[in-house]
C-alpha cells in the first residue's frame, strides 16, 4: 500500500498489488538479459566515446589557440562545447553511476573518475545516485524536484518568492554546473540552519572551492594565456562553451522529471515500498525525449530517462536497445510512457516552471479519490 496518488485520475488504480510485483519481475528479467549479454561490444563503445571526446577536446583547444581568427573561434568553440557535453553526459554521468564498473578497468571506474565540472565527483555521486535515484520524485525527499529553489509541483506550498522562479531557472541554466555544486553541498539549507559551521560541511565546501579553482584556472587563465594574442577571444570561447554545455545539460535534465505527465509522490507513500513499487515509481516519475541517435548520445542517453531510472547501472548504450521492451510493458499494463521531442519537452517543463510561479487552486487536487485497491487514505 504505498504509491499514493491524490489525483482523481489515479494512473495506477487499475493495477493490483500482484500486477505490480509481476511488472517488477519482468523488469528484473530485462535487466538480467542485458547483464548476461554485456561484454566486449559495450567496452568498445565506451572506450570509443572517451577517445572521441578526448580527441575532440584537445583539437578544439588547439584550434582556439588561434581564436582571433573568427572561423577558428566558431569551430573551436563548437568543438569544445560538444566535448564538454560528452564529458559530462555520456561519459561522466554514466561512469559515475557505476555503469562501467563491471569492466574492472581502474581508469574507467566510478571510484576513480572525475569530470569537467565544478562539483567534485564524490559529492555529486552522493546527492545524485544516493538521494535522487533512490527518492525519485518524492516531494520533500528528492531535491531534484525544483532543486530546492523552485516550485515544480502543485503540492509544494506557494510563497511569493516563487514569483521569480522563471528568472532563477534561467540563471540556473546559464551557470548550471555551479547550481549543481551548490545543490550537492545543500548550500542553501546549510547556510540557513547553521550547518555551514559543521567541519564536514566545511571540508566539502573546500573541496568544491579547489575544484572551482582548477576549472577556472584551466578555462579562463591557462588556456587563454597559451593563446597569446588571442587571449581575450579564447576566454570568450571557453566561457561560451561552458555556457552552451550548461544550458544544454539543464534543458536535458529538466526534461527528465518536469514535463507534463510525470507523477510525483508523497513522503509517506514510499514507506515499506516493495521492489515492484519502486520500479513503478521510476516508471511514472520519469520522461523520455525522442530523437536521433546523435541526440541520444549528446544527452548521455538521458533521453531514455525512464530506462535509466529503472536500471541506473546498466551501460547507457543499452537503454535504446531495451526501450521497446520497456515500452511494451507500459502498454500491456496501461501505463503512460511519457515521451516527446526535445523542444516540446523543454517547453512543457518551462511552462510548468512559469505556471507554478503563481499560486494554483489546490482544491481540485484535494478531492478525495475514488477508492482504489492501492490507495491508502490516511495520509493525503
Amino acid at each position, binding site marked *: 500500500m504505498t504509491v499514493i496518488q491524490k489525483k482523481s485520475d489515479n494512473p495506477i488504480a487499475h493495477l493490483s498489488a500482484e500486477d505490480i510485483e509481476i511488472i517488477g519481475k519482468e523488469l*528484473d528479467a530485462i*535487466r*538480467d538479459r542485458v*547483464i548476461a549479454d*554485456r*561484454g*566486449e*561490444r*559495450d*567496452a*568498445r563503445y565506451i572506450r570509443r566515446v572517451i*577517445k572521441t571526446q*578526448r*580527441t575532440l577536446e*584537445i583539437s578544439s583547444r588547439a584550434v582556439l589557440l588561434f581564436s582571433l581568427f573568427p572561423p577558428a573561434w566558431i569551430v573551436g568553440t563548437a568543438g569544445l562545447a560538444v566535448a564538454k557535453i560528452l564529458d559530462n553526459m555520456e561519459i561522466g554521468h554514466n561512469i559515475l*553511476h*557505476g555503469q562501467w*564498473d*563491471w*569492466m*574492472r*578497468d*581502474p*581508469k574507467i*571506474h*566510478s*571510484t*576513480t*573518475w*572525475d*569530470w*569537467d565540472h565544478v562539483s567534485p565527483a564524490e559529492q555529486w*555521486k*552522493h546527492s545524485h*545516485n*544516493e538521494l535522487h*535515484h*533512490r527518492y525519485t520524485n518524492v516531494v520533500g525527499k528528492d531535491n531534484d524536484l525544483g532543486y530546492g529553489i523552485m516550485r515544480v509541483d502543485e503540492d509544494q506550498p506557494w510563497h511569493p518568492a516563487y514569483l521569480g522562479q522563471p528568472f532563477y531557472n534561467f540563471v540556473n541554466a546559464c551557470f548550471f554546473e555551479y547550481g549543481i555544486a551548490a545543490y550537492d553541498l545543500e548550500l542553501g539549507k546549510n547556510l540557513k540552519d547553521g550547518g555551514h559551521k559543521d567541519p564536514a560541511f566545511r571540508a566539502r565546501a573546500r573541496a568544491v572551492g579547489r575544484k572551482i579553482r*582548477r*576549472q577556472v*584556472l*584551466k578555462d579562463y587563465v*591557462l*588556456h587563454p594565456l*597559451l593563446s597569446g594574442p588571442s587571449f581575450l577571444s579564447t576566454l570568450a570561447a571557453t566561457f561560451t562553451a561552458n555556457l552552451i554545455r550548461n544550458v544544454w545539460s539543464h534543458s536535458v535534465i529538466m526534461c527528465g522529471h518536469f514535463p507534463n505527465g510525470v507523477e510525483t509522490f508523497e513522503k509517506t507513500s514510499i514507506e515499506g515500498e516493495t521492489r515492484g513499487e*519502486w520500479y513503478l515509481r521510476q516508471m511514472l516519475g520519469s520522461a523520455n525525449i525522442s530523437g536521433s541517435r546523435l541526440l541520444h548520445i549528446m544527452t548521455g542517453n538521458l533521453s531514455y530517462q525512464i530506462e535509466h531510472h529503472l536500471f*541506473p*547501472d546498466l551501460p547507457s548504450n543499452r537503454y535504446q536497445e531495451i526501450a521497446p521492451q520497456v515500452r511494451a510493458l507500459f502498454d500491456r499494463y496501461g501505463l503512460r510512457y511519457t515521451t516527446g521531442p526535445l523542444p516540446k519537452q523543454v517547453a512543457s517543463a518551462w511552462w510548468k516552471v512559469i505556471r507554478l510561479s503563481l499560486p494554483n487552486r489546490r482544491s481540485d487536487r484535494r478531492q478525495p479519490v475514488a477508492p482504489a485497491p492501492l490507495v491508502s487514505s490516511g495520509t493525503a
Partner: protein
Amino acid sequence: MTTTAPRRPQKVTFRDRLSRLAGAVTTPLLPGDYLDLVAPLRAGAPLRGRIVAVRPETRDAATVVIQPGRSWQGHQPGQYVRLGVDVDGVRQWRAYSVTSTPGAADGLISVTVKAIPDGKVSNHLVRRVRPGTIVQLDQAQGDFVVPEASPERVLFLTAGSGITPVMGMLRAGLHVRADVVLVHSAPTRDDVIFGPELRALAETGALRLVERHTDTAGLLGVDELAGLVPDHLDREAWACGPVGMLDAVEGYWASHGLADRLHTERFRPTVISPGEGGTVTFTGSGVTVEADGSTPILDAGEQAGVLMPSGCRMGICFGCVVPLREGAVRDLRNGDLTTAVPGDGVLVQTCVSAAAGTCDIEL
C-alpha cells in the same frame, strides 16, 4: 583519474613544475590520459604491452609475443609476469612464465599459455586474441629462478604448461653452465609444449630429456624417479606442474630431509569454489565474521562494527563498493557470481553481495 599530485618532500625540479602545469591544463584528466591515445607504451605510462604475434605450440597451447612498454625492467629466466587481459570486456589478471630470453635484441618478451578447460583467459589468449591488442603488464616477479652461481647438477620435474618457466631458463643457456636432466609429463608426444626444441637440445647432448606420455604410460609416480634419474636426490631440483604433482614431490623430498633442495612453482595457489555464505575477513580492520548466503556483506560488516561505506543500500548508487581481494560473492539480485584471486582487486557492491565462500575484503 585523480588530479591529486603526489606530495614530494624533495626540491621541486623544472620537470615537476612542467608536469604540474601540464596537469593544470588538462584537469580533471592527467596529461597521460591524452598521451595514452597515441603512445600507450611510452616511458612513464602504467606498464602495458602490445601483442605482436600469437604462435601456436600444440593443439591447446600458444606463445604470445609481446612488445612491452618502455618501463619494462626485464626479467630473470624462470620468473613470471602478470598479464591483465580484457576478456568479454572484463579485465582479468593472470600470471604466466616468461619463455623468452632476457634482453632479447628485438626487445620483445613472450609467454606461453596452455588453454585449460573453461579457462576464460587462457582460451582467449590461445584462440581469440589478435596481434595489436594492448594488454596490461606488471614487472616480472617470482623466485623460481636458478641462482647466479648455478649448481652443477640440476633436475627439472615438469608437467603440462609447467615446462614454461624451465624453457625460459634453458633458452637463457642454463644447460651450458650445468648438467641438466628434465623429466616432463604430457598426455601425448604432440602435447609436449616446445617438444621439437627440447628434443633437439637432447639430441645435441645439451641435456637429458625424459618424456612421459601419460595417456599411455599413466601418471608419473615419485617412486619411479629413482629408476629414471638415479642421482635425483643429489641434484638441485625445480618442479612446476599441477597441485597434486607438487604435493607429492614436496612430500617425497621432505621425507628424505632434503626439502631445501627442492624449489616449486605453484601457478594456481588458490582454487575458489563458490558456495553459500562463508567467512568474511575485513583485512584492514582485522575483523572476521561468518556470513550466510543471504546477508549482504554490508550488513555483516556493520553488525561486526566495521566502518563500512554505504549509500542507497539497494544496488543503485555504488557508494558501498570495496575491493574483494580474494574469494567469491553472489549478487543477491540475480545470483551472479563474482570471484577474485589476489591482484584482481575486483570492486563489489557490498549492499547487494553476499559471501559465496571465504572472502577477503580490503577494508
